[in-house]
């Protein structure tokens, strides 16, 4: 039973990470949005698996919340924005594809190194997935830093949050539900504010290329 559980959770975590890596080699916001949507769906599925095997009723609610918020509402809003900015051409990121893949590989390895004490300590059957979650956190951080489009940066940020949610669910079977609800609310509000700002950037700069944001120095 436990071995099925642990294999399923590792499989799910790997999928979540792989959807994160898509940001590195695909071009085009459409691909990024669907990668994020699928990542959130898989994350929600992993949460259901943990809820089922870990016999934790609260986690079903968390999974439902994840699916609703990150699998449905946010992707829809993202698509709306994408349609609005569809005419903009894609930009070379600061780091080219080949090097970013190498960097990400190193980051995932680093994730393994960082989480070694956690894996050694934990008794949970889900522990083997934790390094993958940490890897996703680091890779998303890299995506945010190395991309020039405001929209891509937002998606990178959302993936970073997915990585943290995965870490929480694998490491602790989820934080208390009431806190989780507050986190959902924050994620939604934060996203809405970012959306407002992207529209403002578009209006004032006539593009959402963040390279233009270089007025303020020193």
């Amino acid at each position: 039973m436990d071995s099925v559980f642990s294999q399923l959770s590792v499989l799910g975590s790997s999928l979540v990470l792989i959807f994160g890596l898509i940001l590195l080699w695909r071009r085009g916001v459409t691909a990024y949005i669907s990668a994020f949507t699928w990542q959130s769906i898989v994350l929600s599925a992993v949460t259901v698996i943990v809820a089922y095997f870990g016999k934790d009723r609260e986690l079903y609610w968390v999974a439902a919340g994840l699916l609703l918020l990150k699998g449905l509402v946010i992707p829809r809003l993202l698509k709306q924005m994408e349609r609005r900015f569809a005419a903009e051409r894609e930009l070379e990121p600061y780091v080219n594809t080949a090097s970013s893949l190498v960097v990400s590989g190193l980051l995932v390895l680093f994730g393994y190194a960082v989480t070694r004490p956690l894996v050694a300590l934990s008794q949970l059957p889900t522990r083997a997935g934790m390094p993958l979650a940490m890897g996703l956190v680091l890779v998303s951080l890299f995506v945010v830093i190395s991309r020039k489009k405001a929209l891509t940066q937002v998606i990178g940020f959302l993936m970073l949050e997915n990585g943290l949610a995965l870490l929480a669910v694998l490491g602790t079977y989820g934080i208390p539900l009431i806190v989780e609800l507050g986190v959902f609310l924050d994620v939604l509000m934060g996203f809405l504010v970012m959306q407002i700002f992207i529209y403002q950037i578009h209006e004032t700069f006539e593009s959402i290329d963040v390279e233009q944001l270089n007025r303020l120095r020193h």
Partner: protein
Amino acid sequence: MLLGPPLLGALLAAAVRPYRRFVGWTSAVLSLSSIGAAVTLWRHVLAGDVVTSGPGEFLRADALSTLLALCVSMVGALAAWLGPGLATGEDYDAAQTRRFRIFGNLFTFTMLFAVTSNNVGFMWIAIEATTITSAMLIPLHVTKASVEASWKYILIGSIGIALAFGGTVLGYFDFVNLVGRQEAALNWTVLRASAPQLHPEVIQLAFVFILIGYGTKAGLAPMHTWLPDAHSEAPSPLSAMMSGVLLAVALYAVIRWEAVVNAAVGTGFTDGLYIGLGVLSIAIAAFSLVIQRNYKRMLAYSSIEHTGLICVGLALGPLGTFAAMLHLLNHALAKSMMFLLAGRVLHRYGSTEIGRVSGLLKVMPWTGGLFAAGMLAVIGLPPFGLFISEFALFRAGFAAGRPWLMGLVLALLAVAFVSMIGHLNRMLYGAPTAGVPVGERDLWPLVPLGACLAALVVLGVVLPAPLQALLRQIVEIVEQ
């Protein structure tokens, strides 16, 4: 009582659509009752109580919370009285005024909630909410610069906060492994009590995430890059709140976790991290001050410098913590006053360039005088409070046997000192800039700002006994 007023003010502002002035007055008066509540809290805490309320000690205020609640409610009141909430017209239109009333009050509410929540999860949620509410106010006037500043702020701030969430999860992970899952596990009191049994490696990793995460919001280098932009482009009352207390609230979150980590692995680990980031912040701030051409950015970099100082103080044992907390209070007073004064200067001269401001003492004698005195306070001259707290900090450093560190910090402070005096001179003297009307108007806002300065002088001369007792209690909480 503490949390109610700003929330009420925000709801009222949101509910009343015709933009009536009484809404602004109501939140201004309500903000005073928050201060009253904070002072009551202070009295209770000094009597030895820990004030709690809600199911399962949901809200909990000890000495550390009280100090922060005092700072936040005072600066919140300053912003409510002197900000666009009560503005009479030309600068802000009705929609902007309403937006400021709503989000300004919410911002104060989230900060007060962050410092009184017992649950570190809710503390995190509240601090994330401070990012959202304050970011909404930065582009009150939409310009290219303010849009850029708000984007950098929300992106960098959110990522930092997300990393702090990672740290919170890791801390919770450690706890769950120890005693199993339970609802109260994220309560600070529970974490603190079980700290000695936590696993050193995990809790250290958690603290690194926490420090980088909340440190981003506190403006610690090298994660400080959003800070000068946001502080300089935000409307002045918001800059005052961000610089005066938001940074302090972020540090508060770090200190809460520090208490847990210190109890688990001793103070050596956190001390090293604090000193590294603190000295780096002071150094970057000092050298950025030299090349500064914009006075609001100058004040922002000075905030980074002071945050760095507080961090270094936290690493210097009980005496250092005492000095750091006193410094936090002094800085909240001084910097919020300075940003509000800078707002007046900006209003008159229409520019944030130091080069465009000259003859300030002739153009606005009272504002200029207060600005000069405040600047001397900020750079740490007697007879102001910041001199005393910096002096106490250095004494703590020498007592802790770190003379080299103190020498380095002192040298960096001297660099900041010289460059800020230079900038100040350029603004105060000389012929008034052409086209700027001479003469002071609208004097009453200077009364509360003068009171801030008076408070700084008082703190520079004596350390009132109730405050001293409060600070001692904080030291016990952090260092025991």
